[in-house]
């Protein structure tokens, strides 16, 4: 038995997988997590007004999705709807964050299979989007744009042009990346048929997001039309192979889909306010969910007419996807373990909270 993590060169976040080996073949695995548990559910329940900023701190990669999910849930409890302008801005920012998240995951897969140049190329293209969100929100990681009732930072005409220009710049770069990920023979040999996770397993392990779509499950919460997704046309990107290659290519194709969605949203931005005011301490219960880069993110919020919430529960996508490694690892070679682990895009901040 040998340990993979909690400190490992191929994966820097603290999770431990105990691997049972027969020579070089993995025959069993045990998952140990919790090295980074911060008690976020307790902290978020203390003050629902501060939580609209604190919930972004759950994760540094899908921070905006956390605050969108939280604000959307609180709006449902208040019985208000954010203006369409705010919904479109949220959609644009969420797709920007999907781009940065997927490019990070793709870079890590490339690095895990030993293709460091491609890792650098992914991070180079990612930087275009990171700089764009920095110009739009004033922040690279925690955008702090959402408030209950809409967004507190509007997107002006000059910024709309900036988004258009950046997407125009990024699209051919992503297409080039897509060509490399699709055709590179070395990458193909390290990813085709490795870390197999067939559809029945994906169903029973309740995986979400790109991990389940790469196993043939055509489910994408964006189809439910939260934020302004009902205003744009798109179809979930689904593959049937269920291996590292499929998970990688779903993310790669979703990057280009994000560019399409952002370009589709920009001309729809109407004039008008970007937020509505909410007053008083709300009472009620709601389930709110969004499609974060790693999959379905759900918040359960129960407010009791006070500053403190009665209960807030976060069901992050990584919480469902990381345990599925126990089904993917048996049967693989030891050298493939880093690639398989990274291919589920495990976020330990989200998993441990």
């Amino acid at each position, binding site marked *: 038995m040998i340990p993979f993590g909690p400190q490992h060169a191929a994966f820097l976040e603290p999770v431990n997988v105990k691997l049972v080996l027969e020579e070089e073949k993995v025959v069993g695995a045990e998952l140990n*997590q*919790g090295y980074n*548990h911060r*008690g976020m*559910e*307790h902290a978020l*329940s*203390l*003050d629902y007004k501060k939580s609209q900023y604190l919930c972004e701190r759950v994760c540094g990669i899908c921070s905006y999705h956390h605050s969108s999910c939280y604000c959307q849930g609180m709006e449902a409890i208040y019985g208000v709807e954010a203006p369409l302008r705010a919904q479109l801005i949220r959609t644009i920012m969420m797709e920007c964050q999907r781009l940065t998240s997927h490019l990070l995951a793709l870079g890590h897969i490339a690095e895990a299979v030993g293709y460091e140049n491609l890792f650098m190329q992914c991070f180079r293209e990612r930087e275009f989007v990171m700089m764009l969100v920095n110009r739009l929100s004033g922040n690279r990681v925690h955008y702090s744009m959402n408030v209950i009732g809409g967004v507190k930072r509007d997107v002006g005409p000059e910024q709309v042009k900036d988004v258009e220009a950046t997407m125009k710049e990024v699209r051919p770069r992503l297409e080039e990346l897509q060509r490399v990920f699709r055709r590179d023979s070395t990458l193909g040999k390290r990813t085709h048929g490795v870390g197999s996770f067939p559809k029945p397993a994906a*169903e*029973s*392990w*309740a*995986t979400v997001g790109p991990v389940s779509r790469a196993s043939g499950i055509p*489910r994408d919460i964006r*189809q*439910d039309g939260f934020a302004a997704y009902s205003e744009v046309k798109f179809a979930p990107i689904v593959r049937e192979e269920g291996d590292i290659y499929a998970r990688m290519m779903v993310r790669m194709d979703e990057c280009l889909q994000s560019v399409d969605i952002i370009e589709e949203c920009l001309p729809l931005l109407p004039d008008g306010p970007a937020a509505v005011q909410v007053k008083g301490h709300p009472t009620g219960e709601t*389930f709110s*969910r969004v499609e974060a880069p790693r999959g*379905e993110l*759900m918040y*359960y919020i*129960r407010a009791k007419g*006070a*500053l*403190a919430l*009665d*209960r807030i*529960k976060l*069901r992050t996508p990584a*919480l*469902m996807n990381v*345990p599925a490694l*126990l*089904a993917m690892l048996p049967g693989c070679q030891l050298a493939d373990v880093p690639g398989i682990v990274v291919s589920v895009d495990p976020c330990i901040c989200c998993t*441990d909270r």
Partner: protein
Amino acid sequence: MTTEEPQFDRSDVIDVRRRFKGFLDAGSRFIALVVRDSEDGNFELIYVFDQDEKMTDFRFAIPVDQEVDSVADIYPGAMTAEREAVDLFGVRFKGVRPGLFLVEGKSPPEPLRKRQADVKGGDVPG
């Protein structure tokens, strides 16, 4: 038994596996298990599913010392949710061990349990 004592539908607790399987057989996808301290000082367990792209749930209340059937053997995706409930609330699931997030003896026990004063009022607990 006095009228103030909470009433529990224990058949729901016993039938949790059948009800869970019923949702799965109907094509639902398990999303989450939410545990909360209810106003009467007991646990409310909410199993949340995605059914035909809509969220639905089944929920029941149990006294804190009630043991609940685990569904992790029929649905591996629920394993993490149950272990999390064991660690953070001290819910007892049959055959489910603690230690997913917390270390026995080192971490505060059942950190998301509320004191009764917090459940019944007060703005900021803790």
